[in-house]
């Protein structure tokens, strides 16, 4: 008969082992991701070559087209929800005129960048991880290395730059659509005129709001691309590994977007 201490020890070992392994893997991939980001930055001059510029522009186009519809729908309904909830409370106080400012500031400072980042993480970040992961398990990355074609220049740099450019563009678009959705609800449910909604919103918005939103979207874009490429390059173990890489890229990016989003908001508000 095993003593209780031995049994507890065995249970602890079962729990501690995987936790330590997870921590080690996380530390490994965090370090790898940071090094990857730094190396990509050092390779930035290669973006000026004709082939890399063309690859990057192609990716920008594909990323915009690929996320356009889902971003539009989510942004429209987010703006409508904001206006509906805000309007209900403000109506009781007779302050319907504040719907415009609330929707505009929320969409431009917080909801636009955050929501766009989540959409792009799910659609593009996971796609990058799966694409590079598939290349990894089918030895295409090794083939590039053997041909002395640096994978960072050939694969990572165009994707990172394209996502860093596309995220702010899609954020502006999402904010615009969200505000449009908010104005629809404000007009139809709370009798706020179109012109009044627009004027109130523009009066409240200042350049810091726009700058905050844009900075967040750039940081989120870099984060999505870095995590996607990192998880893709660290993929192991065939189709299962590719699935895990895509899932991990979504989970890790969501966490980072929320944490980074909070600290960026905090730094601007204080």
């Amino acid at each position, binding site marked *: 008969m095993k003593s209780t201490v031995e049994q507890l020890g065995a249970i602890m070992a079962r729990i501690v082992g995987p936790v330590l392994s997870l921590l080690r893997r996380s530390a490994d991939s965090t370090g790898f991701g940071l090094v990857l980001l730094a190396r990509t930055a050092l390779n930035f001059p290669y973006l000026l070559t004709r082939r890399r510029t063309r690859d990057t522009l192609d990716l920008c186009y594909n990323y915009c087209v690929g996320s356009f519809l889902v971003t539009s729908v989510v942004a429209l309904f987010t703006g409508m929800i904001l206006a509906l909830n805000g309007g209900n409370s403000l109506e009781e106080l007779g302050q319907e005129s504040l719907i415009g400012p609330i929707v505009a500031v929320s969409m431009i400072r917080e909801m636009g960048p955050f929501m766009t980042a989540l959409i792009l993480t799910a659609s593009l970040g996971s796609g990058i991880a799966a694409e590079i992961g598939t290349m990894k398990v089918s*030895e295409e990355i090794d083939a590039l*290395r053997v041909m*002395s*074609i640096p994978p960072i220049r050939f694969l990572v740099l165009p994707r990172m730059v394209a996502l860093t450019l596309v995220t702010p563009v899609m954020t502006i678009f999402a904010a615009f659509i969200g505000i449009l959705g908010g104005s629809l609800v404000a007009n139809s449910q709370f009798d706020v005129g179109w012109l009044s909604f627009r004027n109130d919103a523009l009066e409240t918005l200042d350049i810091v709001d726009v700058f905050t939103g844009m900075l967040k979207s750039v940081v989120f874009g870099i984060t999505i691309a870095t995590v996607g490429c990192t998880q893709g390059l660290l993929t192991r173990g065939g189709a299962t590994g590719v699935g895990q890489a895509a899932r991990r890229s979504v989970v890790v990016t969501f966490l980072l977007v929320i944490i980074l989003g909070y600290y960026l908001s905090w730094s601007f508000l204080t």
Partner: protein
Amino acid sequence: MIRLENVHKTLGGRAILNGLTLEVKNGETLVILGRSGTGKSVTLRHIVGLMIPDEGRVEVLGQEISSHRQASLPKIRSRIGYLFQDGALLNWLSIADNVGLPLRERNLMPEKEIQERVEEVLSEVELDGHGDKLPSEISGGMRKRAGLARALVCRPEILLHDEPTSGLDPISSSIINGLIQKLHETGITQVMVTHDMSSAFQVADRIALLHSGKVIALGNADEIQKSKDPAVQQFIQGLVEGPLGRETSGEFEPEHPAKEESDLS
């Protein structure tokens, strides 16, 4: 030309190469045989610097590749061609663009000359007229030949083949074997990893049999066939019982994958 001396490599806690010593002479075709999981592909990956040994020396073209982790690797690799198991073609590029990729990306020649060289090498591997197709539009055998064309396009001094005939029908296998023999006549040094015995006996100058990360038999096709070593006989006759055992191990996963990915830029 290629020398591996007492090479040790452990992956996922398992010793894959366990003091491997092997030499490939200039212009010869060496075939590495062995059961799955005995470290054949790992040996090829060491030769091209995709893996570095934990212990031992790997010397290729007069340079110690195991100590050239970063700076000189591209120079050495530019003299080596590598045919991967499934061709490892980029699926969004046409066959011609895949073949011309190393020439274009490394700016080795003007575009017109690249196109001529691509056509020439596609013709060498009997893929004329298939350049515009995508990898998904051609058969497995053709993909391997396209991979071979890409490996040859830069006129390498060494050509490494990782299971070039695996998964192919006998006719496609014969085409690949014929190409390897044709390349042998040009004087290129070749190392081929395979399970395919008939292919090995057809193309090899020498055959090395790997077991437990070591060479256990080395000789020409005749010497290997006539070997009295029970392990060699078990392998070439495909006997279930014998010194090589019944079971093989699966894929090896490195303990720290991030460390294996240091030469990406």
